[in-house]
């Protein structure tokens, strides 16, 4: 099939699957709601920016007035939905589901880029320490809120993630060149170091230990629309630019020297891909914690289905990753039952990271023994 047509049909199909999965997920829960009602409630929750206004805010501690952009949203649809159902779907379930979709989308996209970039089937979005950096930032914010004055857990995780990625890149770069192998090893070393830092902070985190551990396992509970507002623009912009570089990614698979001979500015492209993949990953990890295996397994599955061409692989992986994380998070959400004989905790939480790894690892092993995962 002609490639653009093939890309479009695969993407459209996976987008439809994603919508179905989202609606199905929103219908499930302690209160069962029929899918038609869910769909209507979901459409009611769709908003578009309608007005842009600026208000003035005074920064704490510094005392400087800064203009803050404020966006007014208006609903597009107004279907007749029972009030409690609208609240359950629109305010409780959908933010979490949409956030799961965004995080899955960004992690799978970043994983695809990293596997191609490193030409290594074991590469995942956090291979250069993005997740460790995010975890270090988040745990620091949880355990020592006084020392991390950023206020927001998301922001400190985001900054920790990007700071680590930049550090690894800077360490691995010498004389304008960044050898991929050095990058990989520097990432491993930094991850080990950050692991030690995180462990130290956990030991001294006292009552906050549980919150920190749950964050590190990856979770989507208590998600709000503001989390979506944080993650969505970064993901869309990042993946959007990455989609424009899919041809370079293909050529880079030939090796850096060949790519150079074929007109790719190798070092600049590498920096760009690495930066975008890191930003996209950081956005996902900052709101959802360290969710493993999505960025590793989903690209492999899609590669088996659509082939190695990034022009089709990247969009389809991202969409499949979104569906995958929505499904696994739904399982995590429904499985949040008290553990028999377990500690007496009011609202038990199953971090979604546990589900993705518990499902993803056996599936990956299955692919491995079937010899279907060889190389990128």
């Amino acid at each position, binding site marked *: 099939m002609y490639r653009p047509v093939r890309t479009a049909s695969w993407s459209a199909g996976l987008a439809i699957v994603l919508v179905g999965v989202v609606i199905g997920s929103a219908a499930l829960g302690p209160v069962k709601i029929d899918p038609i009602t869910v769909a209507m409630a979901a459409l009611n929750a769709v908003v578009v920016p309608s007005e842009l206004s600026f208000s003035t805010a005074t920064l704490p501690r510094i005392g400087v007035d800064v203009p803050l952009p404020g966006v007014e949203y208006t609903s597009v649809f107004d279907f007749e939905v029972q009030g409690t159902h609208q609240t359950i779907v629109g305010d409780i379930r959908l933010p979490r589901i949409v956030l799961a979709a965004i995080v899955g989308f960004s992690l799978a996209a970043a994983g695809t880029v990293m596997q191609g970039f490193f030409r290594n089937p074991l590469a995942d979005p956090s291979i250069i320490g993005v997740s460790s950096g995010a975890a270090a930032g988040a745990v620091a914010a949880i355990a020592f809120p006084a020392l991390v004055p950023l206020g927001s857990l998301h922001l400190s995780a985001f900054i920790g993630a990007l700071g680590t990625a930049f550090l690894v890149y800077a360490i691995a770069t010498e004389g304008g060149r960044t050898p991929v192998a050095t990058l990989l090893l520097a990432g491993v070393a930094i991850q080990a170091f950050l692991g030690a830092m995180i462990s130290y902070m956990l030991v001294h985190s006292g009552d906050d230990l549980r919150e920190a551990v749950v964050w590190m396992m990856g979770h989507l509970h208590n998600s709000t629309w503001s989390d979506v507002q944080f993650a969505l623009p970064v993901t869309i912009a990042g993946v959007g630019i990455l989609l*424009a570089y899919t*041809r370079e990614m293909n050529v880079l698979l030939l090796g850096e020297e060949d790519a150079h001979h074929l*007109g790719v500015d190798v070092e600049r492209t590498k920096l760009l891909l690495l930066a975008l993949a890191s930003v996209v990953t950081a956005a996902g990890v900052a709101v959802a914690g360290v969710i493993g295996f999505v960025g590793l397994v989903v690209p492999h599955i899609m590669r088996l289905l659509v082939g190695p061409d990034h022009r089709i692989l990247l969009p389809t992986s991202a969409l499949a990753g979104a569906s995958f994380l929505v499904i696994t998070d739904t399982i995590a959400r429904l499985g949040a039952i008290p553990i028999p004989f377990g500690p007496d905790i009011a609202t038990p939480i199953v971090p979604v990271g546990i589900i993705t790894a518990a499902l993803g690892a056996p599936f990956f092993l299955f692919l491995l023994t079937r010899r279907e995962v060889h190389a990128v």
Partner: protein
Amino acid sequence: MTVFDNRNDDDGTADGDRDENNSDGHDTYGTHDAHGVANDGTTDEASDPIEPATIAVENCSLSFGDLSVLEDVSLTVEPGEFVGFVGPNGAGKTTLLRLISGALEPDSGRITIDGVDVHAVDSRTSSRLVSVVPQDTTLSFSFPVRDVVEMGRHPHRSRFSSPTRADQEVVDDALERTRTAELADRPIDEVSGGQRQRVVLARAIAQATPAMLLDEPTASLDVNHQLETLELVRELVDDGRTVCAAIHDLDLAARYCDRLVMLADGAVYRSGPPSEVLSGDALSDVFDATATVTQNPITGTETVTALPTPVGVGLGGEGPATAESATEHGGDVEDGDAATADHRVHVLGTGPTATSALARLEREPGLALSVGPVVATETTAETARSLGIEPLEVAPFESLSPAELTAFEERVRDANVTVVTEGVFESGGMGTESLLETVDDVADAVVVATQDEDRDGKAAIAAAGDSAVWTATPETILEAVADALETGIDGQSTVIGAEPGPGLETESSAGAAEEETRSTATDGGSDSSVVGGSSSGSDSNSNSTLR
């Protein structure tokens, strides 16, 4: 046709350029003929015809750490020229290609393609000037062949456009020319090595650059694919591309390249047409191997046959046949110092057996060889010349003149051993009988060499007379000659002993004899090169040690 005419005009200008370069003294050779002839006007290509580029390497040096890889290399490749880089492993062929492609930056010097410094422009610009067929490409992923070829269009396409009709046509054309069109939809990791090489070549063709670099394009291919690939490259050159290729196989390089650049230890050792670059002395200098260069009877181009380094079966000194070494190593021969003179062996015959015997005898130090009579254009004569032996040449299809017969007799008489090969018996031609009679009359010892020892050569020669006769195949010729020499020396020790001194004097008297009989006998260099048939293999070396 206008396109074709333009190209010829360009060739004219290019020749002018070359002359300028010659006056600069950078590049003393430059063959710019032959190509363009094969362009039969079939310019139905999709894209605009490509104007071949000039590649200029100016005083480039490069070292990795303390290891100097290239040292002050300068060369100019003229538009439409096919230049082969030859030389031993580690001579810098690949490094030079990587410098030209822009993958490596020289420590000093610069490289321009059509006046553009390839290291000063971005990769997009340089990749529109020069395409590269690497020695091996990592293609472990399953892209369809067509997509791999399409990657060659990358530098010509804008970021957001899908391939244009022109792009598609160039890709189709590249697939067609490399005969990979039927593989277009197959995954690249499922095609054979030879096909893969053609796909990578197709990618470079699709890149539509005026210059193309190939690193060992035939290294992993079997013989028919080697030819196919080089035929195609030749075609590309004739269609208007400048091509540089590192080629390991000297025969193929000689056959397809307009010019060879022989590299040794990171420097240009010699540059010029294959016939000038490939010579026995160059090969022994650069490759440290004894080799013969002959003309391939079918292609008419140079063929290099490397011979193992001397084995030494005790016929003479080891290494260069200097007077000292001959003295040192001669102790085991009965007559002491006097007998350490080079033994002389004359080879009578033509054809593969004679050639093979000649080549094997030549690599034994301490043997002085003579050959003949042979027809000047025959392989044996050519092999002899490339080994530095001046053969006794005769005109074809004519019986021997008395002078020639005398010259022959002279040589057989001088020789300690005469090798007669089967060709002599089988030709049965004019004069054969008189030659054999001469051998029978004057030869000290005779070795009959046949491809197959059971053949009746021995009977033939034994019937002719009562000389001592040994038989051998080309493989065992050295042992047979050694045996013959031992006996021959016993029988004729006075003859050898009568020679006034080791090596030098023997040689000059032989040279004098040659000059008497053949007016074509030339300078002393070629005579002393007979002695120089040693591991060093270099005429000049032998000369300097002998004089």
